[in-house]
């Protein structure tokens, strides 16, 4: 699990010409993400509090907290980070309805809960997560993060039940192509390519 999450700490292109205060503040957040997740989360939190009509700052607060939730000691702290992430996903959802990027993030957070306590959350969240990825796929079949997360999730289930994973490898292949053709604009999420390539390589091994 750790290996998955570390891969989500990513490289966000900073090709935007800093103009407005909002853009500067966001860029500062992305810079911080490379070195200090907590500071980055707080930077985005400040922006989210000031920009109540933009979903991106809240998205990145949740994103940073999902990534910070790992390896917390005592384990109770993990829950606090996951709950904080959920609060900000909810905030972002209130601003931007039916946003596939937020569905992917929710799926990721669900995976964290399942890893945290599979007995309590496994059965409860598995079906929900599957449904979420399917919904995101229906809305945005060409979003590479949707393609990757959905393929990765389905592959995990198939592997668990000892089923053939080849069909899911094809989904990952498709995700990799989508990543290659993705044009990132503004502060829209752009992570996932490295993870897609990593998953693809496990496919080729088996």
């Amino acid at each position, binding site marked *: 699990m750790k290996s998955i999450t570390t891969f989500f700490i990513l490289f966000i292109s900073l090709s935007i010409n800093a103009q407005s205060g909002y853009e500067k503040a966001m860029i500062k957040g992305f810079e911080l993400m490379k070195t200090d997740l907590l500071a980055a989360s707080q930077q985005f939190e400040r922006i989210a509090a000031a920009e109540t009509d933009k979903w991106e700052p809240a998205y990145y607060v949740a994103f940073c907290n999902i990534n910070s939730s790992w390896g917390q000691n005592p384990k109770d*702290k993990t829950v606090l980070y996951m709950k904080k992430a959920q609060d900000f996903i909810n905030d972002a959802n209130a601003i931007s309805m039916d946003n596939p990027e937020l569905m992917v993030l929710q799926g990721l957070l669900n995976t964290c809960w399942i890893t945290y306590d599979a007995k309590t959350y496994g059965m409860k969240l598995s079906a929900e997560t599957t449904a979420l990825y399917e919904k995101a796929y229906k809305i945005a*079949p060409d979003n590479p993060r949707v393609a990757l997360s959905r393929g990765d999730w389905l592959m995990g289930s198939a592997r668990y039940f000892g089923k053939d994973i080849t069909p899911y490898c094809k989904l990952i292949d498709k995700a990799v192509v989508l990543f290659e053709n993705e044009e990132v604009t503004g502060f829209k999420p752009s992570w996932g390519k490295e993870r897609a390539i990593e998953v693809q390589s496990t496919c080729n091994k088996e």
Partner: protein
Amino acid sequence: MKTLFLLLSITFSISSLAQTTISGQVLDEKNVPVLGANVYLQGTYDGATTDIDGKFSFETSETSIVTIVASFIGYEDYVQQSTVNELNDIKIRFRESVNSLNSVILNAGTLNAGDSSKASALKPLDIVTTAGAVGDFVGALQTLPGTSANPDDGRLFVRGGSGDETQVFIDNSRVFRPFVPVTGNIPTRGRFSPFLFDGISFSTGGYSAEYGDALSSVLLLNTTDIPTEEKTDLQIMSVGGGVGNTQIWGKNSVSVNASYINLGPYNQLIPQNNQFEDPYESISGEAVYRHQLEKGMFKAYSAYSYSNFSLIQEDIDVEDGIFFALKNGNYYGNLNYEQRLDNNWKMEAGLSLAHDRNDINVAGTDVDTRENALHAKFKLHKRYNNYFKINYGLEQFVINYKEDVTIDENAFESSVNSSNSGVFTEAELFLSKDLAFKAGVRADYYGLSKELLISPRLSAAISVSKNWQASLAYGQFYQQAQNNILQYDEQLAPESAEHYILNFLYQKDGRMLRAETYYKNYSSLLTYDTDRPQPDSSYGLDGDGYATGLDLFWRDEKSIKNLDYWVSYSFLDTERQYRNFQETATPNFASAHNFSVVGKYWVENWKSQIGVTFNYTSGRTFTNPNRNGFLNDQTGSFQSLNLNWAYLIDQQKIVFLSVTNILGRENIFNYQYSSTPNSMGDFNRRSIGQAADRFIFVGFFWTLGSNDNQLDNL
């Protein structure tokens, strides 16, 4: 990192003019600097993260009045309004936030099944995966401490209380007839599908002022708020089948399910101790509609069930047995509306409506009962902060019950119409995360007896050390007599009980030990002077009694990999003088020792969960007329070993096998003695045992989700 930060701050400052520096230090309650707190001016991007000394410093171009906010996980937000110039070298004192994870819990008397509380004794799935529970929502609760196993009855008997002393609530509205009516030694089942609920709170005493008209216990069931996937469920079982479907559109969802149970084929295969004429047969349907509001939720729940059976009941005095037939129809519906209001107020309104009809025939005598009932409730909740919350509520119960008895074409009719009102208020106060109090009071006006009764409820919790906490609870409880008695004497005032509870809880890393001791004092218990309640009996409230004991519960899901088990033991000492008891005695339903072990082992390679439950209950009292006295003898102990095996074929399909009392032990709950002595002057007897020595259940559960066609898109 720090240099980068400085660098960025510098770059930023170039672009703006007239900067003011805001600086200070963040400390916690013990004056320890807080590292990593977020300090910023509300509505701006200006802010910083505190360093290892809790210090922060940042520049702002704001002038005049600003709002400074400091926040960090685990602490309450700090908010202060001030002019920019005053925010130089300020001290911010954090207060640790009280949340369900780090604070004491007011849990004396309560056992939770759910993930919302850290002190959950059971997890939601335990309700269906506990061996011996066979899908009954109260089945798993029978393995918890504080209950006396009565497998011949099936209801919950809590701490020396009878089955009637537990009230059931769905989404805080009362369920008037939660159990399917049965007779003799056939255990009843809960009417509701266990899959509907995602939180269950079972209180064995000392419960909140919100719940009235219950002497011993309340069982609170909460339906799932928002279903997350559209799906169709199919169930094929050795005793019947079921189908369910969930649809979601926008902010709405509907879940429906229907099931049909017929024990006929099963009874043919596996010998029953009862002689059925018509096998037990039931058909039931449930529907839940949920609508998510911007700041709240609306739920409508509706359930109908119909069941019938007939059998020849053995009787020591009647050679051919006694014919008994029962048809039951039950409707239960509830509406629940929840809305968050301004200033942290929340309102909740609930309405439940129920209709229940029984057509009973006992050896040619017809007994028909009709009950219509209503419960309306309105509640306001105010959260001042995480430390102080208060509840206010009022409710109304209306019950209309009618019984028609026809013996040899002579009809006897009796009825009762009761209308009771209640108001309550309760405050919850956390002095710190280590010390909490709850105090409440309710007033009930019982319309028939014109009694106004006040019930105080108090509880407190204190943390003793990092993993230990102690809690206390006290409460006064009242409950009106059952309709079948009230119909003969409407003036009967409610029975009463006082609870005193002391609880210790230890929790660490997936292990939990709960020890609880209690004393319960019954007074004004119902008495009458005939064999059974009759129109001409003389009724009174002269009974009394007590119950005291110790409940232990240990759950461990950590020590052995893939094994999750719990052990509970209850010691109960109770005596009472009530109904037609000749003297103070321990009633037949109360047993001194109850012990259960439940284990669940997950076998990864088999994708299977194997569960074992062992129950032991010490002997129960009965009256042996061959000796002097009343309730003067004791049956042997009850023991049952139950096994279940759930095999996950894939994400959508599960095969479930369960065997109750696998060793086929012949358990005896009571004896029926002949009313006349034999030629030797002794009274003959027959034993009242289990409905069947073993119960075998095989089921196949198939969920067809919306994701079923996931490969079509390739």
